[in-house]
């Protein structure tokens, strides 16, 4: 029985998308496509704005990870001003990004994915959500909400607001951290560390029950790209870019993100607003798939040699014992995410313990000294690039943004295909199978609002089409 399944909307991810499954004459899945169906156009309407406005303007791309855009944008601004920001400013930016990663990962795990993982992929959809989780696992839900609050209070302390702050600016940050705020944040660390460790233990205890998902949720060879310290330590803000292959070979290391155009191509496809960056050395616009690479928690843990903090390093060792030196299943994004939360809390503890964090000198001032600037950092979902061109007066004349979710686009498409081939047999899609397809996407924690610079929540739509393209079945979930 040939045909096409369309899953539209995809639920519990950030943004709007649909999935098309194409069946062959025998009724088995021949192809699968993940389409992002929304568009906002930041790269266009930012032109004409002063570069100093860009951090807070581009932060509006997303309500989940505005700090990531603030950072990449401010770093692009630093490059245009040609300044080295004060040490306290870098500490505060790092603090904000760590808080961002904690709160975003907590959202991904507890609010979006834990219902699948704790209640089961086949649990009733009506209760397979945060409210169902709160009813059956109230302590877990509470822990998730508190961890998220911890991250958001850090963000507020640095950027001025929990969502869409503006305190990270070209040249540094707008305000120093007060001793009072520092003390208040330190008061959170113990609880956050315990919550992170307990959640990791909880997840590891569940893993054996998801062997089939580990095997089929985007388990394939690819490259991995992330920031990495010069000594190989896990990075989220500075350092260079490292690329590793599925065998653990370092393909490239210490690359300057500002040179991204020399090693990354961007492929646009007519059936999605989401562009697909690829590793240029292995592919071209004619066929980007050989250049497939993954970014985000999975990639960051794959490329680094160590996390750089004791508890996270112990967790990394246990992770590699299970998943191998290079984890290739996208299901392990969840695992990597929780190790990162633990490492972030440890790093936050270290930053807040250092008196230098409250140094009042937090901003460098300069005029327009360069006509182009690229800023990059690790957003929770992966490497984020902002690339600006300005005129002599600092007015934006060109913008290119490479978003983490876009860089995972090829991998998400392959993941959907792999899951569909594993679980879909014919035009009928049982709810549990539908949910597994969504969960495969969800493992990447995609943010389509960011990746198409688009706005909205994330309904899910799956369509099944036959070999001739005729629609056979549709499943919609708003």
């Amino acid at each position, binding site marked *: 029985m040939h045909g096409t399944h369309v899953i539209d909307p995809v639920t519990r991810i950030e943004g709007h998308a649909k999935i098309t499954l194409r069946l062959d004459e025998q009724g088995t899945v021949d192809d699968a496509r993940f389409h992002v169906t929304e568009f906002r156009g930041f790269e266009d309407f930012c032109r004409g704005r*002063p570069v100093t406005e860009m951090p*807070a303007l581009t932060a509006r791309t997303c309500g989940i990870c505005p700090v990531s855009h603030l950072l990449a944008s401010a770093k692009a601004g630093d490059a245009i001003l040609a300044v080295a920001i004060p040490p306290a400013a870098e500490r505060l930016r790092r603090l904000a990004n760590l808080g961002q990663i904690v709160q975003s990962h907590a959202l991904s795990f507890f609010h979006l994915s834990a219902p699948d993982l704790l209640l089961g992929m086949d649990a009733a959809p009506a209760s397979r959500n945060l409210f169902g989780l709160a009813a059956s696992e109230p302590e877990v839900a509470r822990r998730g909400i508190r961890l998220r609050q911890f991250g958001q209070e850090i963000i507020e302390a640095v950027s*001025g607001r929990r969502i869409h702050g503006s305190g990270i600016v070209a040249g540094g940050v707008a305000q120093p951290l007060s001793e009072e705020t520092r003390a208040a944040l330190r008061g959170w660390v113990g609880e956050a560390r315990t919550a992170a460790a307990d959640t990791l233990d909880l997840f590891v205890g569940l893993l054996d029950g998801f062997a089939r998902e580990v095997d089929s949720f985007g388990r394939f060879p690819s490259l991995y790209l992330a920031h990495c310290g010069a000594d190989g330590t896990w990075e989220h803000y500075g350092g260079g870019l490292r690329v590793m292959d599925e065998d653990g070979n370092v393909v490239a290391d210490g690359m300057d993100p500002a040179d991204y155009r020399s090693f990354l191509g961007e492929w646009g496809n007519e059936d999605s607003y989401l562009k697909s960056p690829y590793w240029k050395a292995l592919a071209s616009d004619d066929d980007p798939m050989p250049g497939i690479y993954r970014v985000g928690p999975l990639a960051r843990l794959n490329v680094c040699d160590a996390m750089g903090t004791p508890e996270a390093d112990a967790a990394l060792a246990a992770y590699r014992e299970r998943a191998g030196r290079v984890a290739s299943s996208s299901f392990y994004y969840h695992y990597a995410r929780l190790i990162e939360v633990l490492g972030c809390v440890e790093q936050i503890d270290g930053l807040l313990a250092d008196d230098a964090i409250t140094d009042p000198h937090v901003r460098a001032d300069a005029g327009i000294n360069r006509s182009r600037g690229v800023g990059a950092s690790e957003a929770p979902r992966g490497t984020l690039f902002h690339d600006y061109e300005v005129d002599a007066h600092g007015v934006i004349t060109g913008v290119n943004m490479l978003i983490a979710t876009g860089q995972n686009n090829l991998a998400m498409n392959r993941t959907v295909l792999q899951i569909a081939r594993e679980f879909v047999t014919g035009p009928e899609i049982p709810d549990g199978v539908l949910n597994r397809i969504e969960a495969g996407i969800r493992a990447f924690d995609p943010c389509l609002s960011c990746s198409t610079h688009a706005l909205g929540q994330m309904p899910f739509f799956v369509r099944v089409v036959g070999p001739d393209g005729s629609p056979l079945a549709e499943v919609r979930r708003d």
Partner: protein
Amino acid sequence: MANRRARPNGLNVTIDGVEMSAVEGESVLDVARRAGAAIPTLCYLDGLSVHGGCRVCLVEVDGEHAPRLACSTPVTDEMEVRTATEAITEHRRIVVELLFAEGNHICAVCVSNGSCELQDLASEVGMDHVRFPYQYPDRAADASHPKYVFDPQRCILCTRCVRACAEIEGAHVWDVAARGADSYLVTELNLPWGEAPSCTWCGKCVTVCPTGALAFKGRAIGEMEHDTDLVGFLARARTEGEWEGRS
């Protein structure tokens, strides 16, 4: 009669039922403020000449068919003024909505967010949405000046900058070009601001701007602070010799 203060050759004026004494040449706004009536203003600024362009200081005058502008209407003897009727409140809200619809006022990403008289006024008149179609004008920012940025998308043509520059600084760099809905601000006969030879870089235009149209260069979102009392202080200092009172 309690609030009436006898003045020689004075005028008797009633503001919202409060009887006031006034002198010839005073505006309704002058007397209303003495009476404690809160009439909003945008283009009006102490120390500058009266422009009467923004229309937010509308009041009702007994016997007049249409609302009058408090800033530019001189009081007359036995005038009765109402400053906060339901109709006036609605008129003011419409005026503010039209100002928002005419430009590109995106508070969330504005350098003056939190320090903007237009934003404050929108809140004051209860503007929770705009009932008129946004015009989305395509106006390019002028960042050519070394110290300041002019963003006409946020300009409401109040002409405070024009008057501060001409009347207080004496440079007259700013002016209004074209007419009606096509009007726009220019510097130095439409040269880029950074090439305007008359500009003294004093910044008075920037500090009196009620919105984010004029801002100090390098300021990020919400970092602009205005000092709108400056020109009033300078005007009084020059005419009355009052050099005290500002820190």
